[in-house]
């Protein structure tokens, strides 16, 4: 069987499994639909959290980003794992003790205000849709490259699958499919990593191979990578390019954003007890760390392999994968010096994303409409998102490994999309309808509305996949900034301060959201030509600004609370109760 057939087989089998699980774990009540009946085993919940958490960005884009960022890539590694320490220590156990259905639920009750609940719902929808957009683009990439279907058709197939288990099963269906999806995705990530680690360093454990010598030499992999990077005009792989303050802020924004992401927090509402919530966070981090400690190793291997297999080769003799990815528009080659040989080095080869003309060039490459950038000699455009997907091909691994990676990428994207769609739909049916506008609906009606909301949310998410906004990981990175600057401070102070009142919480969330959102929109959409350290506030990039937004939220919330009425007696009792396990 060839790669395409094998991919159809693996993807088909995994999809059949997900649908079967969805049937078996249908939701029968709102309690099932929102929080899986609060009966999920903490280790299974850890696994589901890990799958929910590790999105298309983690699986598909992260290693590629790290490969091109070098040491700066650690912002993602530390940010997306360190957030679990914050979550486990400061939020998860207390929010589980509170024991309701959604994050706006907590904010609405703790700040005794429908307005606070509404503001929370708005923030939640902003954050979750930003995040879900990235997932659908991931689904599209995998389908178009490996299953040779149109990207749009791929997104629609993805939507139908998610529709099945999210609408039927709610949180219960999603949790158990996520357990299966975790197994698929981690296996798919580790197998090629182990293969490549053995090929390059002879060490079967990627985490160790990463720091080992290359096969047949006495040179350490990372030293070689430093040398090659400098030769090609890049900064050494193991050194930072970004400023310290920017790295600090991006890492912090990702960490606190992780702790404030509603779709992660609700996972801890599904376990039976407070002790289970803590334990579950620990297991979730172990399951996540298996991928996150492998990713930087994969990044280093991929970078070395990528350079080795194309540098100074003629286009005609370049490997098959190079041409395949060029065909779908994620690689491009502009022969600047017309010698028919591929030269890769630092700098952008062309302006913008590649736009191809219908003809082929002298060596058979796709001709580009784009202007070349003549200040450097780099001739290769590569979309960072493809490194993980292309890695097995670059390392010439067997066809079944390539097919496995495709199934894994889909598992990662679908599991996260489902988790996000669930928090969107439950915040609409529970917080907007039941708790705000239509308090008289019965449980059955609420469940029906929850399912409708999930269906609508899936439809909108699908539109994002068909008309995708920018890079997967980049778009996702903004969701964290928004979560950090809106949710984290009010959740944290809602538990650790008895004095924070509704005026403070609402003002804090709004100021955090407005500040962070306007900074991102200003630099990323309105004035892209100003988007560089010279114009940034304290040289903090839009990716890291969420941390500043979070500090603003804290300051505004505390100041406003100080000058307004303290919360009523009942709320203080509630806080005391949350603090007891």
């Amino acid at each position, binding site marked *: 069987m060839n790669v395409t057939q094998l991919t159809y087989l693996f993807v088909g089998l995994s999809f059949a499994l997900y649908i079967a699980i969805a049937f078996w774990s249908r939701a029968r009540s709102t309690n099932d639909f929102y929080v899986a009946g609060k009966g999920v085993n903490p280790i299974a919940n850890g696994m589901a959290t890990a799958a929910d958490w590790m999105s298309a960005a983690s699986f598909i884009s992260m290693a590629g980003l790290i490969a091109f960022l070098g040491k700066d890539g650690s912002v993602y590694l530390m940010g997306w794992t360190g957030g679990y320490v914050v979550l486990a220590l400061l939020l998860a156990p207390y929010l589980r003790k509170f024991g309701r259905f959604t994050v706006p639920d907590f904010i609405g009750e703790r700040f005794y205000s429908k307005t606070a609940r509404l503001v929370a719902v708005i923030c939640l929808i902003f954050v979750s849709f930003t995040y879900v957009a990235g997932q659908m683009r991931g689904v599209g990439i995998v389908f178009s490259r490996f299953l040779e279907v149109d990207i749009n058709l791929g997104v629609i197939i993805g939507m139908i699958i998610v529709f099945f288990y999210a609408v039927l099963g709610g949180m219960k269906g999603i949790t158990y499919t996520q357990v299966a999806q975790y197994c698929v995705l981690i296996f798919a990530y580790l197998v090629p990593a182990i293969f490549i680690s053995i090929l390059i360093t002879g060490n079967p454990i990627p985490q160790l191979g990463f720091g080992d010598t290359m096969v047949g030499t006495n040179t350490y992999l990372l030293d070689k990578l430093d040398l090659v990077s400098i030769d090609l005009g890049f900064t050494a792989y*193991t050194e930072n390019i970004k400023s310290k303050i920017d790295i*600090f802020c991006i890492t912090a924004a990702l960490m606190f954003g992780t702790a404030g992401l509603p779709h992660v927090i609700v996972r801890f509402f599904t376990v039976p007890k407070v002790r289970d919530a803590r334990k579950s966070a620990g297991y979730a981090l172990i399951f996540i760390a298996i991928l996150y400690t492998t990713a930087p190793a994969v990044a280093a291997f991929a970078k070395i392999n990528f350079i080795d297999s194309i540098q100074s080769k003629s286009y005609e003799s370049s490997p098959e994968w190079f041409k395949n990815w060029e065909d779908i528009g994620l690689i491009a080659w502009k022969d600047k010096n017309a010698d028919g040989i591929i030269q890769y080095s630092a700098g952008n080869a062309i302006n913008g994303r590649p736009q191809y003309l219908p003809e082929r060039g002298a060596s058979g490459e796709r001709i580009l409409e784009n202007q070349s950038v003549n200040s450097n000699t780099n001739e290769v455009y590569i979309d960072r998102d493809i490194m993980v997907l292309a890695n097995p091909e670059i390392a010439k691994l067997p066809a079944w490994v390539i097919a496995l990676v495709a199934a894994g990428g889909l598992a990662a994207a679908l599991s996260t999309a489902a988790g996000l769609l669930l928090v969107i739909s439950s915040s609409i049916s529970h917080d907007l309808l039941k708790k705000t506008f239509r308090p008289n609906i019965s449980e059955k009606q609420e469940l029906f509305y929850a399912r409708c909301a999930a269906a609508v949310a899936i439809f909108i998410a699908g539109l994002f996949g068909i008309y995708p906004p920018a890079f997967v990981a980049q778009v996702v990175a903004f969701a964290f900034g928004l979560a950090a600057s809106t949710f984290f401070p009010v959740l944290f102070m809602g538990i650790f301060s008895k004095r924070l009142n509704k005026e403070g919480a609402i003002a804090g969330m709004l100021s955090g959201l407005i500040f962070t959102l306007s900074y991102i929109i200003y630099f990323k959409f309105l004035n892209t030509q100003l988007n560089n350290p010279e114009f940034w506030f304290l040289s903090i990039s839009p990716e890291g600004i969420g941390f500043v937004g979070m500090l603003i939220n804290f300051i505004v919330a505390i100041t406003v609370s100080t000058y307004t009425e303290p919360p009523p007696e009942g709320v203080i009792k509630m806080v005391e109760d949350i603090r007891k396990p």
Partner: protein
Amino acid sequence: MKSNQDSYWKENIKILSFLLVIWFLASFGFGILFSDWLDQFRLGGFKIGFWFAQQGSIYIFIILIFTYIHLMNKLDNKYFGEDKSKDSDT
């Protein structure tokens, strides 16, 4: 009962602060602020600062959460008695 709960909360805060200091040192400290300085030392092929930024900090995070689970279970038992159900013993 009231004062009992207050001292439970105080001990809880103490545990949290202790663990969060280590959390900050392992990530923002070793992985970012002192990372360049640590890079002069090596562990096999890894420069130490680089290793903390891309590997070490993550291992420390896991240890921190499990230490927290252990300490908190002990604290809960001390103030609220043993947890009787058997599916949640750590």
